[in-house]
């Protein structure tokens, strides 16, 4: 055991974990909107619209995240037309490509979580709102969404942890996140175990915090 290396690499790895956290929060926020959007489409009664949402979630859940990042980072640059548009400013940056891929991926999983949450809402609750004469917009925002959020918390907590692990793939598109820096230190020092313990410890610590925050929220919003 090389304790000196472990202590020396700790600040570098902690620094890199900020990039991991930035990637995670950005993609979770975007992914939540994408997920909500597609969950609503899934519940739409028009077949083409809900089929479209189904295909979206099926494709993103059925392929590895690595393929998705590579298509966006390496693949999209190939389309000449894209290079001339304003979008290219975003798509040439590995940072934004990673965020786009992560949000589309987590959006697909989130849409499934939210869809099943919406479906488990008892019809009586919506009917109660209707019989009180509340408009359907307010029923949606004040009754359906809060209940759906509570229902989906445990599953969404798992998704956050899975996404946190997913951000490690950003290192494959040259981003120096926690895994990227860990790999760099391993390949320069050839001390995989020490670096794994430190980097893995930081990841476990983040998992621990997310897990407890979700537990706290579950308790707070339980009924």
């Amino acid at each position, binding site marked *: 055991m090389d304790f000196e290396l472990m202590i020396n690499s700790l600040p570098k790895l902690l620094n890199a974990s900020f990039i991991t956290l930035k990637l995670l929060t950005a993609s979770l926020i975007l992914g939540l909107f994408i997920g909500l959007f597609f969950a609503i489409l899934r519940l739409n009664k028009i077949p083409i619209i809900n089929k479209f949402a189904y295909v979206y979630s*099926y*494709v993103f859940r*059925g*392929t*590895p*995240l*690595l*393929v*998705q990042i*590579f*298509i966006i980072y*390496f*693949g*999209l*640059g*190939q*389309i000449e037309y894209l290079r001339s548009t304003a979008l290219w400013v975003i798509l040439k940056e590995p940072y934004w490509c990673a965020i786009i891929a992560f949000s589309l991926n987590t959006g697909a999983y989130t849409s499934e979580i939210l869809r099943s949450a919406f479906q488990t809402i008892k019809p009586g609750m919506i009917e109660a709102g209707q019989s009180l004469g509340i408009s359907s917009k307010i029923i949606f925002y004040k009754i359906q969404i809060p209940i759906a959020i509570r229902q989906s918390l445990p599953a969404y907590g798992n998704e956050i*942890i899975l996404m*946190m*692990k*997913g*951000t*490690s*793939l950003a*290192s*494959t598109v040259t981003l120096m996140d926690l*895994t990227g820096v*860990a*790999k760099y230190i*391993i*390949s320069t020092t*050839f001390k*995989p*175990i020490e670096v*794994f313990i430190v*980097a*893995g410890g930081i*990841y*476990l610590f983040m*998992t*621990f915090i997310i897990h407890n925050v979700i537990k706290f929220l579950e308790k707070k919003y339980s009924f």
Partner: protein
Amino acid sequence: MELLSFGKTGWGDELLIATMMTIAVSITAMFIGFLFALIFTPLKLSKSKFLNLIGNCYTTVIRGVPELLVIYLLFFGGSGAVMYVASIFGYNEYIEINAFITGSFAIGIISGAYSTEVFRGAIQSIDKGQFEASKVLGLKKPIHFFKVIMPQMLRLAIPNLSNVWQITLKDTSLISVTGLVEIMRQSYIAAGSTRDPLFFYSFAAVLYLMLTYFSMKLINKLEVRYSRGY
């Protein structure tokens, strides 16, 4: 389309072989995972606090740390660890482990953690009466496990194991970083030499989708088979 033709000019045959490799790694990893689950599930279910702790450590660490990090640990540390063990037995030559073994082992450790959780859940949800009944009948331990607990456990575990299979299948894409030529690595090579990454990565996505689709069909059949009695 000529990019996918077989023979020297196209990438069709290479991608086909790579797909086989992905399937081979996934199946091997799944079996290694089952072996790990076979060791760690009893630990997690045991009454001893210490054994429980070991079991929990395994599942918590592996499920809380990115797959890529586990792969790097084994990729860079694997041959060192094997050489260390070999040196205890007096073998001091350099040993290089091939990428297939490292890769399937790394993915196997990961899939084992998920399988352990699935088996634990399945055994815990078997009716207590079943355990007591087989004890009362005086069944021997192996018969108790293989004829009473196992069939019921499998029925409960198969739906969740199909999730583990999907995760394992998708995780194999990560071992492309170690240089094993599976779908992802082959697409990377093809994309590099034809300068057509969009096509090859999209095609890789299609291959993965086909693999997940057909394996789901197969697992559904298994599910029906194991719930015959219900």
